[in-house]
């Protein structure tokens, strides 16, 4: 019989060894899936590494792909840390993109810094407002936020589609080819976000913003009154009540903060990459769900989210570059899912000691009888 015994303390080396072993195990199983479906595992992995890291301009592309995942990863990390399961990162990102493109179009002719600033603020505000709906429902009516936040993803996708394909809205281009084939209006050139070149690697402004956001979140969580309130509400709701912390406001605040992060991700999608509201592209990308993978692999640590988002961005970048009959759609998502499942399963080794439980018979046969009283953790 196998038995799981709680560890009182997790040894340090396990904190590194367990995620690494999970990573390797996921790659092995992913390789098995590839081989069983008639693809070469090693060949596929080699091409992923090449397109994500080593080929010309690959690293720049990886950072572009990592940027939305960085924001949705932060969104999921901050909420999940609080036991608030915001699965609506997808929809909050779409709302952020709608608001940011609206701001960029409305401020045409103004100076660039003003437009870009307004896009970031509008994206954050729209994402926060969209997330505040399930947040308020959870805080004030006790409605499960998992399902409501997820349902609003579909509503957000329909809203973006409506603005471009279903109406003659402010976002839709009605001139030239746009009159017959529905597309979004292109933003003015001043609304394009700048980028930084570091030794041949182009770093998008959105990515830098995300890194700054990760540091700010870490500080908020560790060193502010609100962060402390968050941790108390998450870990000991009863103690929080006695301490006079207003749990409902904290839940709503966390949801809004999480939604704001995802919303800036949407603004970055407009400012850094697309420069136009593109519902099809947004709805197919699945940034929100990938953000949950990023947050879980980073064990909900905002700074770790930065590094994990680069790894996942590399995978997504390679997937986009390689997509074809030899590299089917869905492969990237499958690998991400396997990574997530193995990471979750692997945590058992960090939290528990695995013992072969001795039966009563064996225990009697052994020389020293096992201690009867155990110290409780």
């Amino acid at each position, binding site marked *: 019989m196998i038995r799981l015994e709680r560890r009182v303390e997790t040894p340090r080396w396990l904190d590194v060894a367990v995620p690494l072993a999970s990573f390797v195990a996921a790659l092995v199983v992913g390789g098995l899936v590839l081989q069983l479906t008639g693809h070469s595992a090693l060949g596929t992995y080699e091409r992923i590494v090449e397109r994500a890291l080593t080929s010309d301009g690959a690293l720049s592309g990886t950072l572009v792909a990592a940027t939305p995942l960085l924001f949705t990863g932060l969104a999921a990390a901050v909420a999940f840390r609080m036991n608030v399961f915001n699965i609506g990162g997808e929809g909050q990102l779409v709302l952020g993109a709608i608001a940011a493109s609206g701001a960029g179009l409305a401020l045409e002719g103004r100076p660039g810094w003003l437009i870009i600033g307004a896009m970031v603020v509008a994206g954050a505000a729209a994402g926060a407002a969209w997330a505040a709906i399930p947040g308020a429902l959870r805080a004030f009516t006790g409605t499960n936020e998992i399902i409501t936040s997820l349902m609003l993803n579909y*509503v957000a996708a329909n809203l973006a589609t*409506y603005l471009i394909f*279903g109406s003659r809205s402010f976002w839709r281009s009605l001139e030239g080819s746009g009159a017959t084939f529905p597309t979004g209006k292109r933003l003015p050139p001043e609304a394009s976000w700048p980028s930084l070149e570091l030794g041949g690697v182009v770093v998008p402004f959105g990515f830098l913003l995300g890194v700054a956001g990760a540091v700010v979140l870490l500080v908020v969580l560790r060193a502010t009154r609100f962060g402390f309130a968050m941790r108390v509400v998450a870990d000991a709701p009863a103690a929080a009540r006695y301490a006079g912390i207003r749990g409902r406001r904290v839940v709503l605040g966390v949801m809004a903060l999480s939604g704001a992060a995802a919303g800036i991700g949407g603004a970055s999608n407009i400012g850094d990459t697309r420069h136009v509201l593109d519902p099809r592209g947004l709805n197919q990308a699945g940034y929100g*769900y990938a953000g949950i993978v990023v947050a879980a692999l980073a064990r909900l640590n905002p700074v770790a989210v930065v590094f994990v988002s680069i790894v996942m961005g590399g995978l997504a970048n390679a997937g986009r570059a390689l997509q074809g009959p030899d590299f089917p*759609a869905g492969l990237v*998502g499958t690998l991400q899912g396997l990574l*997530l499942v193995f990471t979750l*399963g692997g945590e058992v080794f960090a939290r528990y000691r695995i013992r072969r439980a001795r039966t009563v018979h064996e225990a009697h046969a052994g020389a020293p009888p096992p201690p009867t009283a155990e110290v409780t953790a």
Partner: protein
Amino acid sequence: MNSNLFVVIAASAIFYGTPLYFAALGEVLTERSGVLNLGVEGMMLMGAVTAASTSIHAPGPTWFALLLAVLAGMVAAGALALLHAFLVVTLRVNQVVSGLAITILAGGAGLSSYLASVWGVATGPVPHQLSSLDVLGLGDLPVLGPIVFDQNALTYLSWAALIGTSWYLFRTRRGLELRAVGESPATADAMGIDVTRSRYLHTVVGGMLAGVGGAYFTLAIVPTWTDGVTAGRGWIAIALVIFGFWRPDLTLLGAYLFGAFSSLAPTLQTRGVDVPVQLLDSLPYLTTVVVLVAVSSGWASRRVGAPAALGTAYEREDR
């Protein structure tokens, strides 16, 4: 209301509600054992893609191919449910996170999409589809005929499943034991009930029912594979369990209500009603939010019917 329109909406409420019901009924069984399964959407998609592939590649007469397709969908979804059970029962992973992981792994951008490309499923309508069966020859009855007696085999099967599950849950010893496991696993354990076995069994059976629901999409509703074909219906099924107070009969009513909302867009569009299609498409999701708010506030906020141990791992040492 035009009685003809009423018949159309009622018949399609049942038609579109059936896959929701299969998935929700499975989730009722799983949650009754204390396991929350948020992987329903992923399991439905796995059921949908394997059923579509079987319908394309299976030999033999239509009834045989369809039988194989539904069974294949059940096996694929059940395998995924087994993974969930292993993660949450044996490894004691957080049930919310594990369910999400399952849906991400199998979801519209994951394994179901990958398998669809590998198996060459997205080529067009599947060859063997579920068609309506007028079993009792009563399909010509006015009003009732087209609504109740002109449905497909899986719909009739769902009514049998309703009766069977209700009887199992409330009239058998096994059902009583299942409810004990969901309400108080420690007590059930002390009574000599194998908590681990019960949770594994009902999670896998629940997943298989979600697989039937998924198969219904590619064999009857769409009936073509597209990535993410179930479009969040797995999540609506989870909401239906709350709406139905964890009871098979009330859940059926909820499923048909949502079936009616799902059918509104196609029905009104063919009649030339001028409403934005995106608004109609959003209705099932908006309704889910409204319904969840309604059942979780007010008199129902005491979580009537929710198994007390739902969402928690059972550890003997914690007793």
